[in-house]
């Protein structure tokens, strides 16, 4: 099982390498540190939301409302910061609080009233986003607090191009990586993290084993909210303007990226490393198309093909391996969970 799980990530990695080779052979600019750092910076926003989505998917749920949450957290925080001054740390903390509150509402509705996650979050997405636009009247914010610009320009490592232009690892990339490392540790080494897998693997068993199902579900959606909020602030740092409609509509792309990285929509499966590769795969497809001078109109076509082919290949393999008997599926699924948990314990 361990090998099989590992294989999925190597799979995605292999596809990335192949794409990388093709792109580099056409435009050598792809394989430069500058481009790599740039990719890691500009995709931090998607990547941070993807961490939250990963948690939700592992727990066996789904969240469509996170883009709305991210926008609200971003917009309200910046309004407050403009009003009272504040600092970068305050901005992050305040946004995270908003995110947690909005996410916890999702989690509570889902658990207390047994509403399917997809329905709850579509409903709250409409609710949150609708109210946001009504109150903001869809206005953009162009003048951010000055510390947003200075913070966004911080580099942890600075290099210079031949022309003397500076580039390097942005603080935004660092935030993304720190969050990924922390959440990876949380998933693998803590009781909470293991409970997430247990919950996603088999809800009823998890409940019977004595896992506090309600608080964990509320936690998962609140965590999603927190990640969305951080992503919202990161988005503001990246583009230096706030538009109420700039994030909503991207939610399905983020879910697709996480699933490409090996997380399953039926829960219980997924790793942070896989998620990272999934996000990077879509990022590289987009970046590569720009570098290969493919017209931008083709982007969706390629992403669609990548999603269908890669998800199709793994689904077809899974289907073949359990095609013999239907009863086997059930048994295999439960052993998968056991193996996962056992493996988690070993790591």
């Amino acid at each position, binding site marked *: 099982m361990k090998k099989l799980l590992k294989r999925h990530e190597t799979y995605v990695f292999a596809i990335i390498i192949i794409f990388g080779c093709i792109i580099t052979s056409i435009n050598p600019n792809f394989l430069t540190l500058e481009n790599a750092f740039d990719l890691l910076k500009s995709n931090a926003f998607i990547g941070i939301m993807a961490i939250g989505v990963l948690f939700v998917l592992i727990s066996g749920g*789904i969240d*469509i409302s996170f883009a709305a949450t991210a926008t609200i957290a971003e917009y309200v925080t910046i309004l407050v910061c403009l009003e009272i001054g504040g600092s970068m740390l305050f901005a992050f903390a305040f946004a995270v609080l908003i995110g947690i509150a909005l996410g916890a509402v999702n989690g509570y*509705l889902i658990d207390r*009233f*047994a*509403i*399917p996650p*997809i*329905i*709850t979050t*579509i*409903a*709250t*997405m*409409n*609710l*949150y*986003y*609708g*109210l946001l*636009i*009504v109150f903001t*009247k869809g206005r953009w914010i162009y003048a951010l607090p000055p510390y947003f610009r200075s913070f966004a320009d911080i580099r942890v490592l600075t290099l210079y191009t031949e022309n003397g232009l500076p580039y390097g690892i942005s603080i935004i990339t660092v935030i993304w990586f720190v969050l990924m490392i922390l959440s990876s540790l949380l998933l693998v080494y803590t009781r909470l993290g293991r409970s997430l897998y247990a919950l996603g693997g088999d809800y009823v068993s998890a409940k019977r084993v004595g896992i506090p199902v309600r608080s964990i579900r509320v936690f998962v959606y609140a965590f999603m909210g927190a990640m969305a909020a951080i992503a919202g602030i990161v988005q503001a740092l990246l583009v230096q303007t706030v538009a109420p409609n700039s994030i909503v*509509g991207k939610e*399905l*792309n983020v*879910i*697709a990226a996480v*699933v490409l990285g090996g997380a399953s*929509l*039926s829960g219980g499966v997924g790793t942070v490393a896989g998620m990272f590769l999934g996000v990077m795969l879509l990022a590289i497809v987009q970046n590569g198309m720009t570098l290969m001078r493919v017209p931008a*109109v*083709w*982007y*969706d*076509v*390629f*992403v*669609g*093909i990548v*999603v*269908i082919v890669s*998800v*199709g290949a793994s*689904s*077809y393999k*899974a*289907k073949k391996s359990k095609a013999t008997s*239907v009863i086997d599926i059930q048994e295999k699924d439960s052993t998968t969970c056991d193996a996962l948990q056992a493996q988690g314990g070993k790591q």
Partner: protein
Amino acid sequence: MKALKFKKNETTVLIGILVFAILIMIIVNPGTFLTSTNLRGMAFQLPELGILTLGMMVVMITGGINLSIIATANMAGITAALILKSMEASPVLGFLLAFLACIAVSGSIGLFNGVLVAYIGITPILATLGTMTLFNGVAIVITKGYVISGFSPLVLYIGNGSLLGVPFPLLIFIFSALIMSVILGKTRTGFSMYMIGSNSIATKFSGINNAKVLIKTYLISGLFSGFAAMVMISRFNSAKSGYGNSYLLVTILASVLGGVNSDGGFGKVSGVVIALVTLQVLSSGFNLLRVSSFLTTAIWGFVMIAVMVINHIIDTNKKVVV
């Protein structure tokens, strides 16, 4: 018996909310809500969303979901529009060809979804997410993002004309709803769809060819997108990729509001029609009040949560919950 009672209750809640919504709208819009202009406006707006929702519900009954309905409709609409534009010399023949092409394109996309779900075994939400992105992309490539507009009166009649005083799109919607309820209620395939949604392993062992039924389901869903496409291009008098994207999640909302279980197995056309009318009443009523359409969206979301909570409370009180 228990299940029957519980379902009855759900419909009662739904009708209650509809009546409540209508009453409120009459009170806050005295003299404007119950006018023929407003009612006709509603009758013209409802069908697009309505037909798309029927395409969504049939898939949800089997326990799946079809995120590609809007992309399918746009793709079919664009194909039809291209044919209409190139055959402007002979409008009738052009119209027939365009209609056939529209149905063929939407049917093939539906079939493609069905194959991905039934034979390749991709989870419906991912398979249709993939085809949604793919065909949105193809539509953009074909049109280069531009609008194709300006059709013959024959085409415009579909979305804007009236037959004996009844808006023509409403007739199409009623017709589609009837077809859907016959498929779901009276045919073997329809029955199998409900059963697959309830327990696909049981259907497999009862000798139902799950794959075949699923393929038919997605094919039907695609065809309904095709019908919606004809209404859409006629009402907008144009075709473009990305039209009606905001309908996607609303169709899921309307289906669930109408009592379709998102895990599959339950749901009736009548419930979905009531839900659609409720949403339309809310949106038209707020429109008369000159409230932002986004507040309407927010209220749709709120109504959705309220209905689910009420249903859950009824459920627990009746102790029908397993």
